[in-house]
């Protein structure tokens, strides 16, 4: 079986503990880094590994870190934040890592903080992840006991204070600048970029926000080096990826597989194919904020560039399957309804536009659609696209809508023509 650096040592039936993690090589990377590598050395290994962010946007992690001021004149306070707010519909990969491999997330956070010279790190955790919180707290206590955390870590002179910030709901909190507002005790409204958080983040200090899965990749990269990381992948995008499938399939689940595994392999081998009596119609490849793909795309490799070439985005890498007994208009409506509710309300196109889209979709779904509605939806999806709103929530929200209209146009038309939903 292929190597699985993120999940290979997970034993789902036993609670994680530090000795088991250590005997699988855990905290070796930390020892290696703080004893023999400079901050820049750690950054360079991560840059060379070509690790890209697993939170949805796929930004190269080393490059992101390189914007943090590191010279003598740099602010003394810097922050490293693990984004564990996972709320993207269809996405359940970070929960597994947090619950079953908390030490690796913690070691990754310490290494990330070391790489940018931060003295404080946070795990921004959604409230609903109760078990994850318990396990993280216990793991942090264990790590403190062994001086992997706290003052003068392993005698290196590097000190780090790691805390959990437990949030209280609302999808927008996961957007990295909204997250910073939330952490400062303000309404979680996104901020304009630039200035970028790497330079001016939490309390105006240089701050890195990385996704949980991104962070969990750091210890094995430091331990085994960039070329090992490249070797894990089927494609040019390095490493493994946490992939998931939900919907009417035989065995929904999440698996760590080589980057570039095809959608077909995920659906047919790992998820056990469609459930008896259901036919495949389409999928959303990376959480609700990505464009639909259909049958003809199943052989596309799930990496950043291949999915983009197919007309969508890798996003979180967690697919939701649309089957033939589920109404595409209803599914898209559920996504738009979610986004309208979760919008922070700061900018007008998103605050006003999404509820309006929801109204039109609901009308179509309940038989009150009118000729021209489809064009209207398409037009407004364009208006909510990139560049017209303050953050990426609205452009993400309309991705499944615009591609849904493209691939399932007949279904939209049938709703309007027959004045009812054919699936109800």
């Amino acid at each position, binding site marked *: 079986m292929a190597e699985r650096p993120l999940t290979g040592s997970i034993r789902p039936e036993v609670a994680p503990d530090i000795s088991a993690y250590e005997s699988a090589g855990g905290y070796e990377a930390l020892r290696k880094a703080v004893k023999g590598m400079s901050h820049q050395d750690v950054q360079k290994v991560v840059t060379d590994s070509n690790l890209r962010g697993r939170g949805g946007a796929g930004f190269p992690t080393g490059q992101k870190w390189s914007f943090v001021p590191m010279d003598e004149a740099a602010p003394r306070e810097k922050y490293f934040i693990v984004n564990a707010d996972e709320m993207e*519909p*269809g996405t359940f990969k970070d929960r597994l890592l947090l619950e079953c491999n908390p030490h690796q997330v913690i070691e990754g956070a310490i290494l990330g903080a070391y790489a940018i010279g931060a003295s404080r790190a946070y795990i921004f955790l959604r409230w609903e992840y109760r078990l994850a919180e318990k396990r993280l707290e216990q793991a942090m206590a264990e790590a403190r006991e062994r001086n992997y955390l706290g003052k003068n870590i392993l005698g290196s002179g590097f000190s780090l204070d790691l805390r959990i910030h437990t949030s209280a*709901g609302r999808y927008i909190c996961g957007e990295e600048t909204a997250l910073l507002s939330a952490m400062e005790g*303000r309404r979680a409204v996104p901020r304009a970029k630039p200035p970028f958080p790497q330079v001016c983040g939490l309390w105006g200090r240089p701050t890195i926000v990385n996704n949980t899965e991104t962070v969990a990749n750091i210890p094995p990269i430091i331990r085994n080096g960039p070329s090992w990381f490249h070797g894990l992948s089927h494609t040019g995008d390095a490493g493994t990826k946490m992939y998931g499938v939900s919907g009417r399939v035989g065995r929904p689940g999440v698996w760590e597989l080589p980057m570039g595994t095809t959608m077909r392999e995920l659906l047919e081998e790992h998820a056990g194919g469609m459930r008896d009596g259901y036919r495949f119609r389409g999928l959303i490849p990376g959480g609700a904020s990505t464009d639909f793909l259909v049958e003809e795309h199943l052989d596309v490799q799930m990496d950043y560039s291949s999915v983009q070439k197919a007309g969508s985005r890798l996003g979180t890498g967690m697919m939701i399957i649309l089957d033939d007994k589920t109404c595409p208009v*209803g599914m898209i409506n559920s996504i738009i309804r*979610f986004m309208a509710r979760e919008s922070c309300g700061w900018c007008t196109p998103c605050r006003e536009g999404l509820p309006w889209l929801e109204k039109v979709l609901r009308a179509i779904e309940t038989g009150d659609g009118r000729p021209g509605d489809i064009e209207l939806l398409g037009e407004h999806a364009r208006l909510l696209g990139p560049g017209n709103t303050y953050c990426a929530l609205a452009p993400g929200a309309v991705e499944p809508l615009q591609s849904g209209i493209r691939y399932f146009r007949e279904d939209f038309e049938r709703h309007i023509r027959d004045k009812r939903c054919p699936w109800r």
Partner: protein
Amino acid sequence: MLTDDERLAIEREVEDCAHKREACVGALRVIQRSRGWVSDDHLRVLADMLDMTPEELDSVATFYPLIFRRPVGRHVILVCDSASCWVMGYEDLLRHLQSRLGVGLGGTTSDGRFTFLPVACLGACDHAPSMMVDDELHMDLTKEKINDILQRYA
């Protein structure tokens, strides 16, 4: 106004914060944990401890769906209405829950047992549909399972 335990827990949240307001979500939840919700009076006391005006603190409190500014039932049901759960039969289950509880989303049962709210994807989509009751996650829901679960909460 606050018990010693509450005051201590809030002071612990505020400890070592560069700016006290950083701890406001944690502090609000301390009150919510012991009282079930955050009243205007408690909000004012908290605002004082956090160096915020009550209006500032309220604007944060009301931003979060899981901070309750009104009394809630003894148990809070958070039902996931996001895409995977929707595909896996959310609408049927919602109707079932509504008829069992006798209230719709946002409501509290007349016996004060349950408050019933929607929630964003619970990260349990491989076991959809899902919901939480208080701190507990329930997955692979069916109507029968929901009936069993509801009975467990007095």
